[in-house]
C-alpha cells in the first residue's frame, strides 16, 4: 500500500469509537477475540468485523497460538498516524503560545483599569 493510502486506512480505522476502545485495550497487552468482545454489548461476529478493519490498516496483527490467536497492537503504525498530526500540532502550537502571551497582557490591563 502506498504511504498516503495506508494513512487513509489508518485514520478511517481509528474513526470508530469501538475500534479506538479495542486499540486502547490492546495497548495494555494481547487479547483474544473473546476477551476483546467482553466489554462491548456486541456479538463476536461484530467485533471480528472491527478487528478485520484494524488488521487491514496494519494497526493490529494476530498471534500464532492455534486456538486463541491473540490480537496485538502494531505500535509502529499508530505512531505513523501520530506523526502526521504532530506536524499539524506544531504549526498551531506557535500561534497558541503567542496567544498565551497576549492573554497575560490583557489580564494585566484588566487588573489596572485606566
Amino acid at each position, binding site marked *: 500500500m502506498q504511504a498516503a493510502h495506508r494513512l487513509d486506512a489508518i*485514520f478511517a480505522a481509528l474513526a470508530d469509537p469501538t475500534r479506538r476502545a479495542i486499540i486502547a485495550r490492546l495497548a495494555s497487552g494481547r487479547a483474544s477475540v473473546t476477551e476483546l468482545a467482553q466489554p462491548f454489548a456486541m456479538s463476536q461476529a461484530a467485533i471480528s468485523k472491527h478487528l478485520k478493519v484494524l488488521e487491514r490498516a496494519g494497526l493490529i496483527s494476530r498471534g500464532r497460538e492455534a486456538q486463541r490467536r491473540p490480537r496485538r497492537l502494531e505500535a509502529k503504525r499508530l505512531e505513523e498516524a501520530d506523526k502526521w498530526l504532530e*506536524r499539524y500540532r506544531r*504549526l498551531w502550537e506557535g500561534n497558541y503560545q503567542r496567544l498565551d502571551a497576549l*492573554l497575560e497582557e490583557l489580564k494585566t490591563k484588566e487588573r489596572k483599569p485606566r
Partner: protein
Amino acid sequence: MKRAELKVTTSGDRDLVMTRVFAAPRKLVYDAHTKPELVRQWLLGPPGWSMPVCDMDVRVGGKYRWEWRKDLGGTTMGMGGVYREVAAPERLVTTERFDEAWYPGESLNTLVLVEQGGRTTLTQTMRYESREAREAVIKSGMESGVKASYDRLDEVLAATATPR
C-alpha cells in the same frame, strides 16, 4: 507554570479537533478570537509572517477576510468565510475557504470555550467536506514544515553566496 499541551485528534470521518487550555478567563480568549487588533497579534503561522489584512464583521452572516504575508520575499496567503453562529463569550461557528485551495471545498469551524476556575479550555473543531479533504490538511502540516526548511535554506544559501 507547566506549559499547556495542545492536543490534536481526529474524530469521525471528517473532523479534526484541537484542544488547549489557557490561563485566562474565557471573555479574554473570546476577545482574542473576535477583535481584529488582537487576532493579528497571534494568528501568524510560521515565524517570519505578518498579517496585513484582518477584516472581521463578527455577527451572524458577517464576513471575515484574513491575509498573511511573508516578510522575506512577500509571498501572500489569504482566506475568508462567514460567521454562522456568534454567541459571546462561548461559541463561534465560521466557514473557512482558502484563496488557493490546498484542500477541497471549505471547512466549518466551531470554537467552544469553557471556563473553570479562571482557566479556559478551548476546543476548535474543523469539519471538512470529505475524509480526503481532512487528510490533505493533516498532510499539509508536513509540507509546510518542509517548505519552511527549504525557505531557510534559500536564505542561508543567499547569505553565503559570495560574488566572484
